[in-house]
C-alpha cells in the first residue's frame, strides 16, 4: 500500500501522517507529481486560507494534476473545499471536482464552527461501520452546500455537506485524524476502498 499525503505547504499534515502510523501505515509526504500519480491512495490535506492555498497549488502545478488522478483521493478540511467549484474565502475558483460552491457561515452562529458535531445521512463505503449521528471534530468558517454529491450532512445554522464524493474523489470537512477512534475508522475505510 503506497499512501501519499500531498505536501504543498498548507497546514498541519504531521497529524494525518501520525494517524496513519497509528493504523500501521507509513504515509509519504510529497509534492512530486510522479510520486503522487504512482500512489495507491492519495490524501489531499489543507488548513488555512483558500485563495492562498489555491495559489500554492498553481505554483506547483498540482491544480491540474489532482483532478486527473484515478486512484481514491481523500480531501480533508480545506482540501475538500478546494476540490469544489469555488470558495467565498478570498473569492477563489476551486479544482471543480465537486459541483458545489463553498460559502461562509452567517453570523447567527459563532464562526468558526469549532468542536464536535454529528454527521448523518452517511453514504458510501467510506462510512462503513460508522453509525449515523457519530461525532466528528471540525474547525471551519466556510462550508460546502448540501448537494447531490453529499455523502454526509451536518447541521450548523443550516444543513451542509460534511462529506462529498464523486467517482474516485472523496472529501470530508471534519478531521478524521483528530476525531478519536471513529475518525481512525474512517481513515481505515478509505485505505480499504
Amino acid at each position, binding site marked *: 500500500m503506497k499512501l501519499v499525503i500531498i505536501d504543498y505547504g498548507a*497546514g*498541519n499534515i*504531521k*497529524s494525518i501522517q*501520525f*494517524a496513519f*502510523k*497509528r493504523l500501521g501505515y507509513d504515509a509519504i509526504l510529497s509534492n512530486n507529481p510522479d510520486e503522487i500519480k504512482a500512489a495507491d491512495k492519495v490524501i489531499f490535506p489543507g*488548513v*488555512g*486560507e483558500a485563495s492562498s492555498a489555491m495559489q500554492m497549488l498553481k505554483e506547483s502545478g498540482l491544480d491540474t494534476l489532482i483532478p486527473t488522478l484515478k486512484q481514491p483521493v481523500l480531501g480533508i478540511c480545506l482540501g475538500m473545499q478546494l476540490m469544489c467549484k469555488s470558495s467565498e474565502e478570498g473569492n477563489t475558483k476551486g479544482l471543480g471536482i465537486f459541483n458545489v460552491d463553498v460559502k461562509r457561515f452567517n*453570523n447567527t452562529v*459563532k*464562526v*468558526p*464552527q*469549532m*468542536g*464536535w*458535531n*454529528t454527521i448523518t445521512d452517511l453514504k458510501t463505503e467510506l462510512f462503513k461501520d460508522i453509525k449515523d449521528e457519530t*461525532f466528528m*471534530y471540525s*474547525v*471551519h*468558517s466556510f462550508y460546502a452546500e448540501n448537494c447531490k454529491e453529499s455523502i454526509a450532512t451536518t*447541521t*450548523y445554522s443550516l444543513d451542509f455537506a460534511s462529506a462529498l464524493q464523486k467517482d474516485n474523489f472523496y472529501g470530508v470537512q471534519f*478531521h478524521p*485524524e*483528530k*476525531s*478519536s*477512534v471513529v*475518525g*481512525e475508522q474512517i481513515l481505515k475505510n478509505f485505505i480499504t476502498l
Partner: protein
Amino acid sequence: MLTKRIIPCLDIKNGRTVKGVNFVNLRDAGDPVELAKQYAVKGADELVFLDISATLEGRKTMIDMVLKVAEQVNIPFTVGGGISSVEDVDILLKSGADKVSVNSSAVKRPELVNELANKFGSQCVVVAIDAKQIDGEWMVHLAGGSIPTNLNLFDWAKEVERRGAGEILFTSMNNDGTKAGFANDALAKLSETLNIPIIASGGAGTVQHFVDTFKDGKADAALAASVFHFGEIAIKDLKEALKDNNIAVRL
C-alpha cells in the same frame, strides 16, 4: 448539534505536568503524554498544554513533547506559553499541534495576532486572556496574573477578534484556584459581544460549576486542571450530568 467542549489543561514544566494553585504552588501530576492518552480515552474533547518552563532547554523539551502527543493522541490539542513569533508557531504546528495560544506576547505586540491568522489561519490562533476584576472593571493582566495592564478585557477581546483570533481562552484571576465556580457574568458578556468561541477557565470545583458556565456563562468550552488531574471529577460523569441538564455534549 455542535457540542460544548470539556478541556483538561496540563501545565508543563521541563516535560512534566504540574498544576499551579493560584499559579504559585506546583504539584506534580504525571507524564503529559500518558495523561493526554488517558484523557482522550476518557472522553475529553480537546487538550491544552501550557508550557511554563522559563528556560530555552525547557522549550526544546516542549517541542519533543508536542511530537509525542501528536503521534499518540487522537484528539485535538492546543499549545501555549512563551510563544512570541511566527517562527515559534511554525515549529509547533509542524510538530503536530492543532492550535497555539498566545497571551502576553499579543498584548505587547498586537500585530502578532494578525501575522499568525494570515500565515496559519484563524482556526489555529487562540488568544488567552488573564483578567482580574478591580473596582468593578475587568482588567487584563500579564505573566500569570501578576502584572496589571491598562487594557479592558472586553475591548481587548474585541480587538483580537478583529485581528483574526479564532477563539478566546478567558481565565478569571479572581476565580482561578478558588474552586468556587467560573466568572459567568464576564463570560456571558464576552460571548454576547464576540462571534468567536469562548473557553471558560478558572474556578472549576464541582459539576454544577460546569453546568452554570455553559448555561449562565454561555461558554462554548470549559477548561479545568486539578479537578480532572486529581480525579475529583470524572469526565464521563461530568458529561452525563451536563446531558441531564440539556447541554449538548459528545458521549
